[in-house]
Structures are given as structure tokens and as C-alpha cells.
């Protein structure tokens, strides 16, 4: 009888401490909502001739988006704890994929394209369930989450000159730029995301983040912000805001930027691309760039001081 009583006590104590531990843990978990309805802002979006209205996207957002992005748009939906990278926090109005300079708001079209294209290497799907009008309405809805959209206009889209032909000289110049601008510090000399600084990178919310690994894909070529040469151009000329990837717009001339794009394509070693064809035709080796006399000599990647 006595043994049974003390076992009962042990049982009670175990349940009480477990409840306290669980209760304590539950209190530390993020508040994933749903939250009481907030006064609704009305915003619009303009993509070409399409006009989106935020009030028409409310039920789509709650059905498709709020689970990750949260009903307050702050990236704290109930799925967020399981995701890496974390869902975008729309209240900060910082976006990775833009046509506009670092630190400025994206164009409505940039957000429209991101919804439709999804974000590779993340849980953001390719939202091909939406019509163009639905996507435009969702862009307008996203703009209701941050007061920045009231106060600022989006940045001007960067100027992108016409792409020059892919030649081995262009690829060689691109490799010279990759070395000189020290892209390899994060991306590694072969672009595998294994540079000396790669292991310590964190994004603007202090979450660990890895640089893009160019060699990883098979025959595909998707980057976070698209899959074409033009998309690569925009990535390093506008920077991937909210991440360690800076903008190089102040240090690369737009004409030279295309050379870097062509070189970066050769880092995607498994991909059938015009750039890899040109490289193969040149014997598989990129010649050293012959600089104009005013510039410093090229050094090999990985050996920079």
C-alpha cells in the first residue's frame, strides 16, 4: 500500500513537471496565429496592363500563403519552424529577387514573377495554380503588410544592355572578374559554395545560409531568382537583399557584367549550354585574360591574398 502511494506521488510529480515543461516550451514557441482581423489596407499592383487589388486576394492568401508566411505576413506561419530557408517576412519589405538596386523596393512585376516561378532550393512552390489576375491581386496584398510601400516608390529597374555573343574571350574576362572581385571567397574557386567564408555566412535574420553552388545542378539551371542569363545578370547587379550576396553594380560595368555571366555558366559543369559548348570547342580550358596595360595582372582563384 505504501509503495503504491509513493508511486502515485511519483506519477503526480512526473505529470506536473511534464506539464510545466510542455507549458514552458509552448510559451516559447512563436505565435503562429490566426490573429484577430486587423483593419485592411487597400493596395493595388500594376504588371503591364494588369491591375491587382489586395481585397480580392484575401482568401487566396489565407488558403495558400498564410501557412508559411503567417496571417500577419511576418514569416511566422505555423509551417515556418520546419522550413529552411525561412519564409519571407513581408513586414520588412526586403526581397531577394528584384530588377531594382539593392535597398530599394522591387517592381510589382518582380513579385509577380517570383510567385509564378517559385524559389528554387526553398519551400516556395511554383504557383501554377494561380491565374495572372490572382497573382496580381496577391502582389497587391503582399504590399499591405509593410508601410514602406506607402512611403517609397520602387527603385528604378537597372539598365541591362544587349547580351554580346558568347566567345572564349568573354568567358576568359568573366573568369578574371570572378577572381578579381573575390566571388570565390564565398562561392569557392569552382563555384561549389565552398569558399573560405562560406561556412560562417548568415542572412539578415541571423539564420545560417549557404552560397549558391553552381556545380550542383544536372542539366537544369535554376537560380533563386530565375534561370536565364538575364536573371543571373540581375542577381549580382542588384544583390540578393536580406542575404550576404551584395550588389556589384558600383564595381562592374554593365558590358563587363555579361562576361561574368558567361563565365558563371561554365561553372554549371553538368549543363548543356552555349557557354559550355564554346568552352569545349576551345579545348576545355579557359585562357588567361589579357588585360589592358592599365589593369593589375590576373591571379588564379584560391591564391588571392
Amino acid at each position, binding site marked *: 500500500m505504501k509503495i503504491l502511494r509513493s508511486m502515485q506521488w511519483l506519477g503526480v510529480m512526473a505529470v506536473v513537471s511534464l506539464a510545466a515543461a510542455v507549458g514552458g516550451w509552448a510559451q516559447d514557441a512563436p505565435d503562429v496565429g490566426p490573429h484577430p482581423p486587423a483593419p485592411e489596407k487597400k493596395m493595388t499592383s500594376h504588371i503591364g496592363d494588369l491591375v491587382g487589388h489586395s481585397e480580392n486576394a484575401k482568401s487566396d492568401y489565407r488558403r495558400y500563403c498564410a501557412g508559411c508566411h503567417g496571417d500577419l505576413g511576418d514569416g511566422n506561419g505555423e509551417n515556418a519552424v520546419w522550413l529552411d530557408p525561412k519564409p519571407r517576412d513581408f513586414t520588412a519589405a526586403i526581397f531577394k529577387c528584384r530588377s531594382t538596386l539593392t*535597398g530599394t523596393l522591387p517592381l510589382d512585376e518582380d513579385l509577380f514573377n517570383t510567385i509564378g516561378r517559385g524559389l528554387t532550393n526553398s519551400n516556395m512552390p511554383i504557383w501554377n495554380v494561380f491565374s495572372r489576375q490572382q497573382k496580381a491581386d496577391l502582389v497587391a496584398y503582399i504590399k499591405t503588410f509593410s508601410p514602406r510601400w506607402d512611403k517609397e516608390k520602387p527603385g528604378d529597374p537597372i539598365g541591362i544592355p544587349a547580351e554580346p555573343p558568347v566567345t572564349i574571350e568573354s568567358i576568359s574576362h568573366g573568369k578574371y572578374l570572378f577572381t578579381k572581385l573575390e566571388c570565390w571567397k564565398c562561392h569557392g574557386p569552382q563555384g561549389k559554395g565552398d569558399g573560405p567564408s562560406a561556412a560562417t555566412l*548568415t542572412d539578415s535574420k541571423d539564420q545560417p545560409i549557404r552560397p549558391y553552388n553552381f556545380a550542383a545542378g544536372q542539366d537544369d539551371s535554376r537560380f533563386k531568382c530565375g534561370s536565364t542569363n538575364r536573371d543571373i545578370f540581375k542577381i549580382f547587379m542588384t544583390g540578393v537583399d536580406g542575404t550576404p550576396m*551584395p550588389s556589384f553594380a558600383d*564595381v562592374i560595368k554593365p558590358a563587363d557584367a555579361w562576361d561574368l555571366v558567361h563565365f558563371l555558366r561554365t561553372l554549371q559543369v553538368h549543363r548543356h549550354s552555349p557557354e559550355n559548348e564554346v568552352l569545349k570547342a576551345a579545348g576545355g580550358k579557359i585562357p588567361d585574360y589579357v588585360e589592358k596595360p592599365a589593369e593589375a595582372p590576373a591571379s588564379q582563384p584560391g591564391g588571392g591574398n
Partner: protein
Amino acid sequence: MQASKPCIATLIAVLSPALLFGGTISGKVTYTGTPAKQKVIDMSKEPSCAKQHATPVMTEGVVTGPNNALANVVVYISAGGDDPNPPAQAVTFTQKGCQYGPHVLAMHTGQELDVVNADQTSHNIHPLAKVNREWNKSQPPGTPPLKDKWDQPEVIEVKCNIHPWMHGWFVVLKTNHYSVSGENGSFTLPNLPPGKYTITAWHEPDGKQTQDVTITGNETKTVDFSFALKPY
């Protein structure tokens, strides 16, 4: 002041600004308790910076001096001293030896900020602004200073992603009356017209203290601040 005989008019002309705006608030910032131990920075991944330092470089989360002095505290007028106009002169933030100088840079909203790369390696400047716009720009060696300015008052953390130990602060203010304490802990806010002021002392990452001071003429008022530091 000239040693030769100035005429009375010149004397008055020279002295009158001091008579009109002569008040000064100055003092010392000290700490109590145990400051967090700073760690040695391993710069071996960046040899061009590692070789610039003869002795080990420490992190700068807490910088102290003799007699419990606390450095890198921004003391500024938070009420009564706002000025809509930034100075014309720019402030400079320098990357040298893979460290930011100064570690804490105070400036006025709208004042030009010049970021200089004095190293042999690229840096990226990534001010993690939340109220102002966050941006991130690459700055290779030998390129001209990056120029920018901030519209809103804010305490902004600055980092370099390539060199994760590099860490600094921009303290953007609405006032031109500010002073950053050095290793002797002292600060001075001169040229204050008579009035009631609130001064605030900020210490990274989020320590803030305020005191109220009234200036009636061209006196010097002494105000001291003391921060209680914890070892963790």
C-alpha cells in the same frame, strides 16, 4: 585668442558666439560589474589582414579603459537639441586590417557617409537597417569610397559577410550634439544654447540611459553615466 591687442569690437565678435552658445555638458561614462570577456579574432582565412596585426585582435563588444571607463558609448541630446539640418561634412567609416574604424560611428540623418576600403581584400558593407533601408554592396580594394546617407534616426548594426568577425554600428541621430566616449570614458557636448535637455547614453547592443540637464548660460554641467555590465 590673439596675443596682440585686439580691438574691443573684435573681442566682442569673437566672444559673443561663446556667450550665446557657451553651455557645455560633459562627463564620464563608467561601468560596474564584470564586462563580458572579449575573444581573440582568428583572421587566418584572410592573410592580407592577419599580417597587419602584430598582436592578437580582440572583438570589440565591450571596450573599457582605466578606472572602469567605458568606451564606444554615444552620448547625445535626445530632447531639446534636434536640428533639421545635417552638417555639410561627411563622416567616414574605414575598413582597415579587416576591422571597422571607428567601431561606433555617430552621424546625423541626411549626413553623407563615406565608406572606405583601405585593405587589400574585398569587403561587403551590409548595414542591417530595419527602419531605414537595408542594403548590401561589394567594395573591392582600390575602389572609390561608397557614399550613402540615412533618412531616419536608428541604431544600425553593420557587418561584413565575407569576414564574419567584422562588426560595427551606425548611430543615426536627429541632433548634431553627440559625442562618442573614448577609452577614458569621457564625452563632451559643447556649444549648447540655454534650455532644458535630455541626454541619452547608448551602449551596444541596446543599453540606454537618460538624464535631464538644464543649461542657463555658458556654464559647464557635469553629467556622468554608469552602465551595469554582465559577464555574459
